[in-house]
């Protein structure tokens, strides 16, 4: 019997069952109140996984997902991607090669080192790798990273982890809680490198975030984004989809005890635009695209997109 109940617990799927609202008590005088409270029909909708939600709601819903996964975020990533996400992140940082080697520095430059803005980097995965690469490979001790995340729980996780790094409590690492679509605290033309790794698919308005990235970057600055994308090989795609929709929610349920959040992750991956579409969005924000504009990782499971803000006064 216990085996059967355990099986039920595992097999409980996160299918969204139609919620039957209990009929509220309605008197004649309440009707007006009710109609005033009703959501306006014309509110813009956006997708949250496979369901559509009003734009105003998506932010809080995504917030709830990431608050619930924050503590087990890394273990889960390891289990879901079989550890490959570490290779992707290492490759991403290595290809960006942050930091200027001391020997190549112009002698009288006024601000040394890069100013990196890591959006949606709450747990600091990318930020610590960037700083490590700058310090150990390029011997650049001035490059600094600002971690920005909309979710306080993810930032708290990052703060906790930063205590174990040499950058804890130094000016090289700072944390900001902000919405990437609107960052008035960051001046225009101030950032060398803007990175967003596995974050942009959760944004309510991706184009607004891209436009904001274009604003804060210095001319010549780079927008770099790593995100789940579309697998190009049909056979591999079938295997990958099967893994995504069957295994990942199950792993989420067993390891993190939270099936719905992982169901959302999988659905949001599925809804994210293809490599070409997203490249078009980056171009639309005004960025120059280097070469093909994206680099597929592991057959297109993830892709690195890059864009460069043009320099207006070209020599």
């Amino acid at each position, binding site marked *: 019997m216990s085996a059967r109940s355990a099986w039920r617990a595992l097999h409980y799927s996160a299918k969204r069952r139609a919620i039957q609202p209990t009929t509220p008590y309605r008197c004649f005088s309440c009707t007006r109140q009710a109609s005033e409270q009703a959501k306006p029909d014309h509110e813009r909708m956006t997708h949250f996984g496979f369901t559509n939600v009003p734009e105003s709601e998506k932010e809080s819903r995504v917030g709830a997902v990431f608050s619930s996964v924050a503590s087990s975020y890394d273990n889960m990533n390891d289990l879901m991607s079989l550890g490959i996400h570490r290779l992707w992140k290492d490759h991403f940082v290595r290809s*960006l090669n942050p930091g*200027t080697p001391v020997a190549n520095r112009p002698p009288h430059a006024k601000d040394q080192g890069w100013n990196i803005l890591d959006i949606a980097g709450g747990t600091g995965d990318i930020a610590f790798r960037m700083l490590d690469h700058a310090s150990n490979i390029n011997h650049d001790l001035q490059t600094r990273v600002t971690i920005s995340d909309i979710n306080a729980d993810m930032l708290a996780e990052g703060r906790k982890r930063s205590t174990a790094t040499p950058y804890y409590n130094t000016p090289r690492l700072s944390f900001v809680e902000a919405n990437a679509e609107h960052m008035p605290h960051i001046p225009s033309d101030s950032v060398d490198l803007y990175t967003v790794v596995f974050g942009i698919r959760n944004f309510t308005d991706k184009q607004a975030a891209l436009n904001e990235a274009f604003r804060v970057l210095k001319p*010549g*600055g780079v927008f770099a984004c790593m995100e789940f994308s579309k697998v190009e090989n049909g056979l591999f795609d079938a295997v990958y989809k099967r893994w995504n929709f069957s295994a990942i929610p199950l792993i989420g349920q067993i390891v993190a005890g939270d099936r719905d959040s992982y169901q959302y992750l999988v659905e949001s991956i599925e809804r994210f635009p293809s490599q070409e579409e997203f490249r078009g969005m980056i171009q639309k924000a005004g960025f120059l695209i280097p*070469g093909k504009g994206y680099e597929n990782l592991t057959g297109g499971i993830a892709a690195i997109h890059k864009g460069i803000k043009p*320099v207006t006064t070209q020599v």
Partner: protein
Amino acid sequence: MASLQRLPAPQRAISSIQLIRPTRLIHTINHHRPSPSSASQSPSTTLTTNLSFKTPSIPIRTYHSQLHPRLPPHEYTNSQTAILTASLPHIPTHGVTAAALTAGARDAGFLDVSVQLLPRGEFDLVLFWLASRRGLLRAKVEGGEVFGANAEELSVQEKIKILVLERLRMNSEIKDVWQDALAQMSLLGNIPLSLLELHALSNDILTLAGDTAVDATWYARRMGVGAIYASAEVVMTRDPTPDLLETEAFVERRFEDKEVLKGKVEGIGSWVGFWGNTVLGVGRSWGLKI
């Protein structure tokens, strides 16, 4: 029979080609006969066809024709070209490295991070050097600097040799760091593009020298010139003489080798031909139905 019937008649094939690519035909006509009447009409026709068909300015062709405008030596965008051009003066000091690219980006008014504009990194610098020198060689020949006044008297063979040496002399200021570039080019992923560039160079050299062969030697000639140039480049990196005298002597020897090899191949050809004919004749004299 069924397969034969499926083939389109020549007339239909031509008309279908015209249907697919009308711009090329109009463009060729305009290019061929720039008479004043057609010139006055052509802008409107080309404009409308361009608008309606949205063909790229330089359509990709699988064949070469003198009537078509030449392809640009490289396909970099303006910003990429700005960074790469500014990086070239840094090659003698920094070598063909990311440091040269960074310094170039800084000179061109970009940031250190802007080298991300070049997805292949250092190899882009190598390719740009090769492509831009190739364009420069062409410009020099068309400006009449290379062959001088007696261009008419030189044979194609002599012209090829002059062009190969001229191209090698363009490398003389960076010959000390060129081994880095050769190493970059020999990486497995970079080999196809390097060979493509070598082919483009040997093709340019042969075209500029006035070589008009369209038979099977077309391939042999390009391979020969490519092999001589590539091996001479390796010799050049170890050449201590100021005017590349050793390299020049090496190229001379290779061209002599090429002549010897050509003679041998021709000799073997005629030998095989002779014995083939003889065997055929003997067989026929015995009454075989050959």
